Structures are given as structure tokens and as C-alpha cells.
């Protein structure tokens, strides 16, 4: 495995530290102490390698990943496990308007299909309930792990929730005052895939489509002030 799991500044520190050790090793060699020189050059080379590639075998073995900020779901599920979905939508509103609206978590059920309630517990935590067809129902507590006003909100589930998931939403302004590209990344899993099955029951078999509909409806609310519907209109008999 050679994926990047070392954070940027840590990579520079590794590379510089490795370089320093190699210089020290060269001195030891000049001082005719080859044993020490070999040890230092081995460690130095390793650090240089780590800095250069951004990959640490030790981190990989320990399940540690410092490369990603809190904005990527993968970090919080310790690797690229489970199901990962990503969707983006362009909305003719500024990033701060959209951020402000989205941050009112209790309004999310208005536009995300099947999420029936979000109860805010405190600054960071909220309790979510989702319902699917029949009796399918899921509850979880989500915690905000990164919150940069007008730019980013990231969260993950905590405790023994039905659903283990993590996600993030980014707000990036488009050039030419066209509004904002809002992108959502979402990952969910549970050992044994229980969450996946549950998620499928509650949200259907196409999670990216559910996410897409959620974003579309959010856009409709923000731009048009309402979500178009035909529910309740007259129809002829069969």
C-alpha cells in the first residue's frame, strides 16, 4: 500500500529531518564510525522517503492517517472502506448564505429525502432519525468535527449508532459572481456491512441519487424559495 497517509507539514519535517540525519551520517563516516553512519543513513533515508512519498508504513500498520484534514470522511473511518459517494451542485447564492442555512441542521429534513428529524443536542452534536419504506428506521448521533464558517462543515457519527458514517460539505464561490459550488462527500460503513444494508433499506439502493436529490432540493429552496411538487394535485380515475 502506498497511499498518502502523512500530513503535509509532517512530510516536510520528515524530509528535512531525514536530510539532517544523512548529513550527520556522512560526518560519522568521515569520523570513521561506520556503524553509527549506517544506522543514521538508514533512518535518514526512511524519513526522506516518508517525506517524499507521503506514506508511512508504521502509520499504515497502526491505522493512523494524518494526511487528510477533518474534511474527508475516509479519515474517520480509518481508510477507504465502505461506501463513498460524492455529489456537487451549483447554487446562485453566496457561500455564506448557503453555509448559514445548512448550519441550521434541524432544517435538513426539509430537503434530504427520508431524514425525518434532526435534533440539535449541543454546539457539536445532533440526533438524526431517518425512515424508509415500511418499518425501516435508523437513528444516529452526529458530531461536527470541522467547522470553517462559509467554507466547510464536516461530521461523523459517534457512539454505538446504527449508522457509522462521516461526511463533509464544501462551499466554494464560483468565478464571475455566479454563486457557489457546493459539494458533499459522504461515507458510511459498519464492520459486517450492517450499516450498508440498513442504509439501503432507509435510503434505497442508490445513495448517490438520494444525495443528489437532497442537494437539488436544497438548491430549489435557496433559489426558488420552495420545492416543486405535484403531490396532492387532481388525477383522473383508473
Amino acid at each position, binding site marked *: 500500500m502506498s497511499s498518502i497517509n502523512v500530513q503535509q507539514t509532517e512530510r516536510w519535517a520528515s524530509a528535512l529531518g531525514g536530510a539532517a540525519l544523512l548529513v550527520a551520517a556522512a560526518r560519522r563516516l568521515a569520523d570513521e564510525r561506520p556503524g553509527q553512519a549506517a544506522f543514521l543513513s538508514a533512518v535518514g533515508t526512511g524519513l526522506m522517503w516518508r517525506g517524499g512519498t507521503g506514506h508511512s508504513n508504521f502509520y499504515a500498520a497502526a491505522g493512523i492517517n494524518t494526511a487528510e484534514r477533518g474534511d474527508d470522511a475516509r479519515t474517520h473511518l480509518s481508510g477507504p472502506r465502505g461506501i463513498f459517494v460524492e455529489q456537487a451542485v451549483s447554487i446562485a447564492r453566496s457561500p455564506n448564505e448557503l453555509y448559514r442555512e445548512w448550519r441550521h441542521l434541524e432544517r435538513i429534513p426539509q430537503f434530504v429525502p427520508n431524514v425525518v428529524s434532526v435534533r440539535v443536542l449541543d454546539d457539536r452534536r445532533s440526533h438524526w432519525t431517518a425512515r424508509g419504506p415500511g418499518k425501516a428506521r435508523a437513528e444516529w448521533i452526529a458530531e461536527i468535527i470541522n467547522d470553517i464558517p462559509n467554507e466547510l462543515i464536516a461530521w461523523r457519527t459517534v457512539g454505538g449508532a446504527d449508522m457509522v458514517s462521516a461526511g463533509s460539505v464544501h462551499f466554494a464561490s464560483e468565478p464571475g459572481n455566479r454563486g457557489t459550488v457546493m459539494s458533499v462527500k459522504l461515507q458510511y460503513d459498519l464492520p459486517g456491512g450492517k450499516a450498508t444494508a440498513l442504509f439501503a433499506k432507509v435510503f434505497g439502493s442508490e445513495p448517490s441519487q438520494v444525495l443528489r436529490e437532497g442537494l437539488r432540493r436544497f438548491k*430549489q429552496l435557496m433559489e*426558488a424559495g420552495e420545492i416543486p411538487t405535484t403531490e396532492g394535485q387532481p388525477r*383522473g380515475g383508473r
Partner: protein
Amino acid sequence: MKALVWHGTDDVRVERVPDPALLNPRDAIVKVTTTAICGSDLHLLDGFIPTMKSGDILGHEFMGEVVDVGRDNRKLRVGDRVVVPFTIACGHCFFCERELWSCCDNSNPNAWMLEKLYGMSSSGLFGYSHMMGGYAGGQAQYVRVPFADVGPIKVPDSLTDEQVLFLSDIFPTGYMAAENCDIHEGDTIAVWGCGPVGQLAMASAKLLGAGRVIAIDSVPGRLDLARRQVDATVINFEQEDVLDRLKQLTGGRGPDACIDAVGLEAHGFTLDAYYDRVKTATYLATDRSNALRQAIHACRKGGVVSIPGVYGGVLDKFPLGAAFSKGLTFKMGQTHVMKYLAPLLARIERGEIDPSFVITHRLPIDEAAAAYRTFRDRKNECIKVVLKPHQPAVH
């Protein structure tokens, strides 16, 4: 209330259905005083449009009186007399702000269906299948109008229903087709298809300064109307070679712009399998795509091919080589109706045009089902049917 309801291929019925109610804050409810059957409604009758469901109320050309208004609608009041565009638009998205109303991002509740078919969704339409939004249509006594603070235009009492009704679709559609031709004084414009849209495209071309319009069809009644109304030079494609005749008339140069007001009617909204079925089953279908091929071949170098006719699927044997070689421009798409409402209403008020010249039949709604078949089967006498939803049946 009474409404014209689709139940399947060749099966439309007038029946009693519940009255519509306000569903969203910007809605209005309109009591329909006059409505019409559109040529594109015949594709529904013939079962060529997918995602129709038994029980759907049809109709996308209608007008009437506002009888109820949602709480966020600050434009309309109860009692207003309005014409309603067939396209539904939110008024605030990227596309609405650029007057590309029929491309609205926010008015189709079933946008995902069109996204699967075309990659992106356009605006919702009244009474025209679930992939177009599944909105109940206006061939009914009452209709719910979403985003009613954007589309409907108030019309003065000095004009009759029939004078303004076609602002809902076919007049702006014909006008946009002509406008897309980038007409210069004295231009020759050839129009394939002399149904109501073709007729209004020719009339609009004249309004925009065309020196001559050429009408191409095979139905004598329609060619006669074009000759009478817009002084068109007519070509009956069953009796004459269209390309030869156009070269004769223009000294070999070809028309400055060609309008395809036929469309792939019988092919409408094809998916691949569907397309194959139609392609192999109907001779008419090949005949009809001929209109566009002919238009491309006939058009002068550097000219415009304008397409108000509806296309839905994949086109076969498209002569792109000829189009490229001659440097043609193509313009097409659903009409951005809202863009044309005020200027075209003004033209009607000034007496420059009376679009009601296309009407041949006036019927109470109870006779709507029969009217669909008349419209489809008797093209010579029947060009445009208008319906009166509140007029009692005549027996």
C-alpha cells in the same frame, strides 16, 4: 371539475376529477376560460411519449381567471385575467436570470428522469408526461399554476380570449423560430410544416421583415391558409420536388433560413430500443425526419436552420457534412415563452397580428376526446381546436 384525462394510447376521456388546490406558496389556481389542443398533444394520444400514467390530465395551452393565490405570490390577485405559458420557470436560477426560461433548473419535480435521458433536466411543462414534471394540465375547468408569479401575463379586457390564448405556446414558439433565423430585410424564409406553429412562424417572419416566405406541406387546406394569411409561396411536397423548386425560386442560392416546424413527431422522445421500433415500423417516421434533412440541403450557405419542431431521441443519417460545408447555424429548443409574452401581447394590441386565424374548431370540453381524433385524422379541415371548459355541452 371536468378534465380531459389520458388513460392510454388512443384513450383520452373527459371525466370528473377533484378540483385543484394550492400546493406551494407561489402557486395560483386559474379558472380556465379557454384552452386548446396542441399538435404535440397528439403524440400523447398516439402513445409516443414515455412516462405517461393513466389518470394524467392533459393540456398546456390555456388561459383564464385567477381564483386563488398562494401566500408568497405577490404578483397575482383573485380576478386577474391571465394567459399561462406552457413552460414552468422559477424566475431565480442561472437560466431564468438569462431569459432561458425553458431551461429552468428548479421547476421539474422529476428532474432525475430527464437527467437520466439527456444528462440534464429542463423546465417542467404542464400536462406533458412525468419526465416533464407530471404537472396536471389545463384542458380542465381549473388548473393549479406553480411559480405563478413568474409565468402568467395579465391581459386587457379589450382583447378576446382567442386573440391572446396562443401566447401560451404556439405564437411565442413560431415567433422564436423566426427570431432564431436572424432575419434581414427581404430575406426568404422556407418553412416545413404548416400546422399552427408553422403558420405563426411564417406570420412572425413577415413581422420581422422577411421579403418572402415559402410554405412546404402536403395538406392543401394548410397550404391555402398560408397563401391567404401570409401571402406564402407554397410547395406541396407530394406533388413537387422540394429542393428543385426552392433552387428555382431563389436562383440557386437557397432560402436564407429554413424552419423545421415538423419535428420528429412520430419519433418523439425515443430511447434506443424505442427508436428502433419506430424506425422499422412506420414509413411516416422516415418521411418526417426528411424535413430536417431537406432543410439542411436547401438552406443557403451561411444560413440558419431553425428548429421549433420537437425532437426527442437519436437522429439517424444527419447530413452534418452538408451543414459543415455550407457553414450553417442551427438554433433550436423549447420556447422561452416568458421572454416573448409582453412584446407579443403588444403586437396583438397594436393590431399587427391576430393569431386566432389558425382556429378552425370551437368546442365545449365535453367534446374534447372526439376533438383529439378529429385533429389527428382530418388535418385538411382541422388546424386548431379550442375548447371552452365552462360552456355547457350542445346536444
